[in-house]
C-alpha cells in the first residue's frame, strides 16, 4: 500500500512542480528532451575507466539541479529506490576485473573504477531525465513525443492512461486499506481472495474508465482532431545550443 501511496504522491508532486516558475520550466519540452537524450548518449558512451569525463559530465547534471524545481533530497530518495539493480550488478566488477589502472600516480583495480563510473553514469542519466520531466507539464511531454514522430495512437493512449492512473491509484489504496483493516486476527494472507479483489478491481475500473472517457468526450475531447502544441521559441533554441555545446566540450575535450 505504501508503494501505491508513494507513487500517487510522487505523481501529484510532479504535477505541482511542472506548474512552478523555475528557469527549466520555461524551456520548450522538445528542446529539453533533445538535450536529455544527447546527454544520456554521450554519458553512456564514456569509457568505463574514464573517471575524468564522467565527472565532467556530472557538472551539467549539477547545473540542471540548480535550475530545476525538484529538490536534491527528492532526487536522492529516488536513487535509493532505483539503485539496487544497478548496484547488484556493478558490485561484482571489483571481483572480476583485476586489470590495473593508473590514476594520479596510484595503481588501482579497474573493477573499482568501472563500478564507480557506472554508478556515476546511473546518477547522471537518472537525474537528468527526472529533472526534465519534473519541470514539464504532462500535456507538453505528450506534445513533444508527437514532435518526435511517435505514433499518435500510442500518445493518446498514453495520455488517457495517465489520467486513469490517478483514479486507480486511489482505488487500489482504498482496496488495500480495506484488506488490511478487515483482518481482525492477523491470519494468513489468502491468494484466493486477493485474486477476487484484483479481478473485481479490474471490472470496476473498466466501468469507471468508460465514465471518465465519456466525461472527456463531453468536454470536447476528440481523438481525430486532437492537436499537439509544439512551439519552439528562440530562447529555447539558445538554451538547447548552449547546453549541447557545453556537453560536447566536456565529453570530447
Amino acid at each position, binding site marked *: 500500500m505504501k508503494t501505491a501511496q508513494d507513487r500517487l504522491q510522487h505523481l501529484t508532486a510532479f504535477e505541482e512542480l511542472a506548474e512552478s516558475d523555475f528557469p527549466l520550466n520555461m524551456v520548450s519540452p522538445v528542446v529539453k528532451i533533445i538535450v536529455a537524450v544527447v546527454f544520456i548518449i554521450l554519458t*553512456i558512451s564514456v569509457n568505463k575507466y574514464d573517471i575524468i569525463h564522467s565527472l565532467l559530465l556530472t557538472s551539467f547534471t549539477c547545473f540542471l539541479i540548480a535550475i530545476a524545481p525538484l529538490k536534491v533530497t527528492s532526487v536522492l530518495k529516488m536513487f535509493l529506490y532505483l539503485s539496487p539493480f544497478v548496484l547488484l550488478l556493478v558490485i561484482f*566488477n571489483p571481483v572480476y576485473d583485476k586489470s590495473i589502472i593508473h590514476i594520479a600516480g596510484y595503481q588501482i583495480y579497474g573493477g573499482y573504477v*568501472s563500478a564507480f563510473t557506472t554508478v556515476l553514469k546511473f546518477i547522471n542519466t537518472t537525474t537528468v531525465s527526472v529533472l526534465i520531466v519534473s519541470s514539464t507539464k504532462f500535456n507538453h511531454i505528450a506534445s513533444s513525443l508527437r514532435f518526435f514522430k511517435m505514433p499518435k495512437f*500510442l500518445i493518446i493512449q498514453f495520455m488517457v*492512461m*495517465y489520467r486513469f492512473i490517478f483514479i486507480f491509484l486511489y482505488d487500489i489504496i482504498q482496496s488495500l486499506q480495506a484488506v488490511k483493516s478487515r483482518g481482525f486476527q492477523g491470519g494468513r494472507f489468502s*491468494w484466493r481472495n486477493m485474486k477476487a479483489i484484483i479481478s*473485481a478491481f479490474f*471490472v470496476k475500473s473498466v466501468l469507471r474508465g468508460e465514465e471518465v472517457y465519456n466525461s472527456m468526450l463531453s468536454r470536447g475531447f476528440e481523438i481525430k482532431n486532437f492537436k499537439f502544441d509544439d512551439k519552439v521559441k528562440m530562447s529555447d533554441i539558445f538554451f538547447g545550443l548552449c547546453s549541447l555545446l557545453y556537453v560536447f566540450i566536456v565529453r570530447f575535450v
Partner: protein
Amino acid sequence: MHMADALLSVPVGMTFWGISGVAAGYASSKLKKDLDEEKTIPLMGVAGAFVFALQMVNFAIPATGSSGHFAGGFLLALLLGRHAAFLVMSSVLLVQALFFADGGLLALGCNIFNLAFIPSYVVYPLFKNIIDKNESKTAIWSGAFLSLWLGAVMVSMQTGISGVAELPFSKMLLLMLGIHLLISVFEGIITVGSYMFIKRYSLQTELNSEKGKLKPYFGIFSVSLIIAAVVSLFASSKPDGLEWSVYSIMGRASEPTSLTGQFHNLLGSLQDKIAFLPDYSFAGDSEQWGTSVSGIAGAVIVIILASSLGYIIRKANKN
C-alpha cells in the same frame, strides 16, 4: 526487471529502440485498421492503468528477504490481443521511465522489448490456440511464466553484450533467473486468477477482438533464437571431453601426426577455409560476441534445414 541506462552500451540501447519503434509503428497501424479508436482507446487506457496500479502491489519472495511485483504483459495480451497489449505495456513503461525513472530513456527500447514485445508477439502466439480451445490454466500459467523468464534472459543478454558489468554472463544469467523464478511463479498465479475471474464478467470477449487461430511460427523462431544465443554463450572455449580424453591418452599436447592424423589435418584446414563461423566464433575472433552470433546463425540454419526437410517430406507425400 527494468534496465537502467548505466548498464547499457549505446549500440545495444539504440538497436532495441529501433526494434521497439518498428514494433510500435506496426502495432499502431494494425490496430487502426482493425478497431474503432473511440471504443478501443478508453479500454486500453483502463487496462494500462490497471496494470500500472497492480504493479504497486509488492509480494514477499519466500526465503530471500526481497520482494517482487506483477508485470502483466501476458495478462494484457490475453485481455486485449497482441497489438493492443504491446502498445498498452509500452505506454506503461513510458510512464514509468518518464515519471519514476524506472528504466532509463535509452533503456526504454530494451524494456519495451523485454516486457511488452516478448509477451505480446513471442509468447502469446505460442499459447493462444491452446487457451482458446480449452482455456487451459496450465497454458495461461506457462505463458505468464515464460514471458517473465524470457524477459529476464533478455536483460542478462543485453547487459552482457553491453559489457558494462564485469559479472560473467553465465553467472549473471543464473542470478537473474534465480531471482525471477519465484516472481514468475507468482506472475503465473496472478495471471490465471485474474484472467479466469475477469472472464466471468464476459469483458474479455469485448476487449480481445482477435478471433481465429494465430500462427505460432514467429514465437517458436524467437524462442529458439533466444535459447540458441544463451546456450551458445555457455559454450566452452576448452576442447570437448572426447578431444581432451584422446589427447590425455596419447600423452601429447597436440594431435598425432599419423597418416590418419595428416588426413584429419587436411580436412581441418579445408574446414577452416570454408567455415564462416569456425569454433562458434568469427574467424580470428574468440570473443563472446562471435559465439552468440554463431549460436543464432546456427539456430537459423537449423530452422531453415528443418523447414526445408518438412517441405520436401510433404511434397513427397503428396506425390
